[in-house]
């Protein structure tokens, strides 16, 4: 018995600060948030328990559904864009270019800029003014003789959120590239040589040797990008502020909070958490299984 404590006591003690702090500031607060979400809480008046009414109200409210649709469009374009460009760049760098280090830095640099700082610039770039008053991308298109491609960008009803994904893609494609590049580098050269010896064409080599090895990297990249996308707030606040046309759940939550509707804001926060969980939990289970398999 005494020996048992000696075994697990010190490690437990060493991680206990983390356990306690994370326990309080993450899990307890998630609980508090959820209990607030079940009340008709305003900033000042006493709370009144209403069960799941906040959730049912939200899920039948056109405005919230609109923000979810916006988020869906944004997430799809953001994920496809970053994966596509990230993979393309990584593949080209892997093929061997001169000054690879320089290119790597160039593609990674945007990630060092905060969404708020770049958002202020993108607000100007994505200005939907056209003709004489055009600025940003519309002006650029005019000056290279492609005036017909001028666009409303995020101001377009419906698909405007796809334009909002452009800054996010610009910023994070480099990160996905870095992930893929490390994936490419992790594939031993011998495997490729062996495949070539067996007479595989370049396409078959990628299809049957390289891609399967990249599978875990792609999954990580996808999950990282997806959960960032679902939580997007700073970029949208910097580009347009909280306006209806670019509203996503996170900005709606902020509006509800400033309108002193704490119950509603907490309900939105809970829904956001669940949305992220849909992506994260299967991933965690998958990695846990993979690790256990590796240990065996």
């Amino acid at each position: 018995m005494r020996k048992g404590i000696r075994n697990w006591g010190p490690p437990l003690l060493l991680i206990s600060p983390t356990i306690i702090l994370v326990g309080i500031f993450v899990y307890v607060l998630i609980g508090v948030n959820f209990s607030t979400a079940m009340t008709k809480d305003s900033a000042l008046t006493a709370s009144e328990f209403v069960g799941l009414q906040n959730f049912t109200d939200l899920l039948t409210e056109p405005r919230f559904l609109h923000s979810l649709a916006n988020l869906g469009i944004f997430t799809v374009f953001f994920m496809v864009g970053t994966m596509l460009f990230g993979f393309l760049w990584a593949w080209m760098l892997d093929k061997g270019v001169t000054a690879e280090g320089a290119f790597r830095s160039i593609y990674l640099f945007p990630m060092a800029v905060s969404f708020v700082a770049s958002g202020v610039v993108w607000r100007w770039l994505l200005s939907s003014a056209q003709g004489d008053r055009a600025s940003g991308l519309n002006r650029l298109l005019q000056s290279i003789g492609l005036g017909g491609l001028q666009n409303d960008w995020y101001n377009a009803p419906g698909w405007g959120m796809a334009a909002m994904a452009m800054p996010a893609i610009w910023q994070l494609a480099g990160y996905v590239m870095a992930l893929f590049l490390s994936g490419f580098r992790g594939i031993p050269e011998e495997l490729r040589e062996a495949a070539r010896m067996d007479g595989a064409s370049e396409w078959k080599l990628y299809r049957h040797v390289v891609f399967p090895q990249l599978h875990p990297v792609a999954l990580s990249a996808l999950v990282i990008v997806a959960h960032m996308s679902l939580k997007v707030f700073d970029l949208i606040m910097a580009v347009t502020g909280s306006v209806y046309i670019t509203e996503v759940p996170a900005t709606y939550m902020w509006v509800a909070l400033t309108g002193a509707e704490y119950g509603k804001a907490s309900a939105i926060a809970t829904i956001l958490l669940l949305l992220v969980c849909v992506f994260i939990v299967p991933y965690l289970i998958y990695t846990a299984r993979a690790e256990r398999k590796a240990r065996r």
Partner: protein
Amino acid sequence: MRKALAAVAGLAVAGLALAGCSGSGDSGNNGDSANDDSQVEVFTWWASGSEKAGLDALVKVFNEQFPSTKFVNAAVAGGAGSNAKNALASRLKANNPPDSFQAHAGAELTDYIEAKKIEDLSAFYKQNGLTDVFPSTLLDRLTVDGKIYSVPSNIHRANVTWVNTDLLTKAGIDPKVAPADLDAWLADMQKLKDNGVETPLSVATDWTQVQLFENVLLSVLGADGYQGLWDGSTKFDSAEVTTAIDYYSKLLKFANTDGTGQDWPVATDMVVDGTAAYNVMGDWALAEFDTKGQTYGKEYTTWPTPGTDGMFDFLADSFTLPVGAPHAAGAENWLKTISSAEGQKAFNLAKGSIPARTDADPADYPEYQQGAMASFAKDTVVSSLAHGAAVKISWLNDITSAIGQFVSTKDAGTFQDALVQAQTKGLAQ
């Protein structure tokens, strides 16, 4: 030895966790707070620009009038006041109020009043003779169930149309004469468009479009009908509101479509540089024209938005006395300075607004303010929607969202339904 170390580490962790939970325990030092005028902690969002200059001027007057009360500045910057409001809500909820806090006068105070977080100041108004120097229609707007809860420091007007004189003269329209009503105004816009002005009217992000809609409502419904929207005596599904929505969509056809996401100066600058002829904006736009070197009456002029002449669509910053303020006597001194003639003069000259008192001397103020002061004294005062005077914030948020949707989809039916729902929800709470 190892065990002892471990115990110490464990204690330290527990201590840390406790410290995290306990928060501010030193807020409840009471004693005789009602008579304590040693200091006053004033909570505002006036942290930069002309607002900071105004606050500094006010504090200077305060220090002269009440040298024994120390002014403690508790300004919270950012987000056009929304950061400050969130910080304030958590302080009030924890019963740790400042001695006085800034809030838009009118319905924005509803939440505070319902939660019994601020004191009735009717007695203060009587003692200091404020009921005689503030216009009676303003007092009507400030009064809730017979009680007044805040002291306005300055007044802004929201139904002002800013006009580029050059563009109008070129199109053969006299810029000095305001169109009689919305129809005449729309006709002028058509004339401007025929003369090559692509966007006769400029708009910016959602709240400026709310302000434009509020002006249209005011013009169509008149002062009483408009004011009735906020207490339920005018219904949003009435035919007049349908007419107003119709006018609003006609106006938007003459406006730029790229406004959403742009701050108000972008729209005002379109009038300055002659790409737009009209901009409906509050009179804080005056500073924008000033900094661009424009002269009132020459390059630009203003009139009340057509159809709203004789009405003063007001918004005001005001100060309160929270329940349980630690230095209530200090707060009263502060409110006295704000409402005094000298305090209002110092603040409004620096901020570019007009005083709430009608006994101020117009000669002290620049030209635009002189005109605004004259209308303020004689016009019917109504409450601005877009700036928190007419409805509480959650109701305004619903309206703003509905207008944002309308501007992008142009679906009048959905818009009116959303307005009706917002009214039902806003009045029910």
